[in-house]
Structure formats: structure tokens, C-alpha cells
């Protein structure tokens, strides 16, 4: 699924546009814990999160995630916007809840971009 199609499905506003135009998503990963994203997200995924901080953008950059979707219509601060521009990460915002956003995207065919395995014991 393209990023543009995913954004249309969740009725999101564009906060920071993707720098490279058309983006094909490898799938989707949803979490508020950045450690979970670092451990399990696969590169190329859309990150759905309620965390509106610079850390969200830096985590996306580290994991090669091209775009972040902020849920619940939360405010996105200027620091996060600046970090996103600097790191070339697209940022969108949907009024939907995380559950609703994930549900609609999965229904439309987007799949989990999750690495197999668990945290080492």
C-alpha cells in the first residue's frame, strides 16, 4: 500500500510532507513505547503512535521508518516538526484512535511490519 493511500484511509492531516513523493509501505507498526519500535519494527513501515516527541522522529529515523501517524488528533510541537524535517520523516495526524486507525488500515490490506522473536530473557 502507498503511504498516500494509508493517509487517505485514516483521514489524516499532513504535518510534514514526505520529502521523496510517493512512498510504498512495507507494512505498519503501532506502539507508544519507542523501545518496542526499536526492538520489533521492520524498516519501511508506517509508525502509528500517540507519542508526540522528538524521540518519535529519531526512532523512525534509526529504524528506517518513512512516516509517523499521530493518533487522537494530538498537538504536534514545533520541536517534533523541526526534527522531522531534519531527519526527512513524514508526519501525519489522524483524529482516530489507535485501535480505529490500525483496524481500518488492516481491513484495507496493510499488514504488520514486525520482526519475529521476543526480547531475550
Amino acid at each position, binding site marked *: 500500500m502507498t503511504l498516500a493511500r494509508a493517509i487517505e484511509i485514516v483521514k489524516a492531516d499532513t504535518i510534514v510532507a514526505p520529502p521523496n513523493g510517493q512512498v510504498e509501505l512495507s507494512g505498519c507498526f503501532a506502539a*507508544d*513505547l*519507542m*523501545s*518496542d519500535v*526499536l*526492538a520489533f519494527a*521492520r*524498516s519501511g513501515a508506517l509508525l502509528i*503512535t500517540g*507519542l508526540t*516527541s*522528538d*524521540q*518519535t522522529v*529519531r*526512532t523512525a*529515523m*534509526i*529504524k*528506517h521508518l518513512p512516516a509517523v501517524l499521530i493518533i487522537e488528533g494530538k498537538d504536534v510541537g514545533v*520541536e517534533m516538526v523541526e526534527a522531522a524535517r531534519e*531527519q526527512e520523516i513524514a508526519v501525519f495526524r489522524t483524529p482516530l484512535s489507535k485501535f480505529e486507525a490500525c483496524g481500518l488500515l488492516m481491513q484495507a490490506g496493510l499488514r504488520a511490519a514486525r*520482526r519475529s*522473536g521476543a*526480547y*531475550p*530473557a
Partner: protein
Amino acid sequence: MDERSIGHFEFPILGRAYFLGGRASTSVKKALREAGVDDDTVQRVAVACYEAEMNVVLHARSGYVSVDVYPSRVDVAISDHGPGIADVTKAMTPGWSSASDEARALGFGAGMGLPNIKQQSDLMSLESEPGQGVVLRLTFYRGGGNGAGS
């Protein structure tokens, strides 16, 4: 005979500067890419560095990350001046955390930092001196590593 380092870089980490957390790791990632290191290794180093950098930001006064690139591996050392880790075994337990609410508000402090670092790296050693600080040494074999970065 040990290999010679073909690239060395260091980046400082400021303790308690939450808004800067992750800057050193994004710099490490860019520097490794420019040095021609393969994507999987870059990804694993960057993830481990980011978790370690956030540990420094959240718990210590200051620190730095030092990276050496060798033909067959990447060595990383993250050193800090801070309280040290009182109980390393506990700190390695997934889910155990001594982080503040502030840390949790940044999406960290879930007790997954060190387990995550262990998962990404091929070799890991942790020296903690209570009241002095922590030195974390990591080795990542280039290409054919543990695949955690993909």
C-alpha cells in the same frame, strides 16, 4: 593479529538533555553509512546506540559514544559519568526499570533498553562502578551478523 581500525568517531551525550536524546545515535548512523558499512550492521549499531544513549540521558550527567570501524566488525563503547547501575542482573531483566516518569513520557524507561542492546549486538560487556559511571562495550560483526537489524 588484530585488525586495524579504518574509521573512528566520537559523539558527546549530555545527561538530562531530554530534547537532545538520540542526536548522537543519528550521527553514528550517518557516519557508518558514509563509511560504507552494510545496512543491517548500521541498523543494529544505531538501535543499540540509541537505547544506550537514552540510558545516559536519563540516568547520567554526561557521556560519550566512541565507534571504531574494522574490516570485519564495528566496536562501540558508550561511557558515562553517573550513578552507575546498582544491580546489573536486575537491569538486564526485560521490564525492570528505575526510570522516572519523565523518561516514560519520552517513550523510554520501559525496562527494555539493555535487553534490546543485547539482542542487537554480537558481543556485549557492561562495567559499572557505583557512583562513577558505566562503560558499555559492544561488538557487531559486519554482514552475516545476528540479523536483528532487518
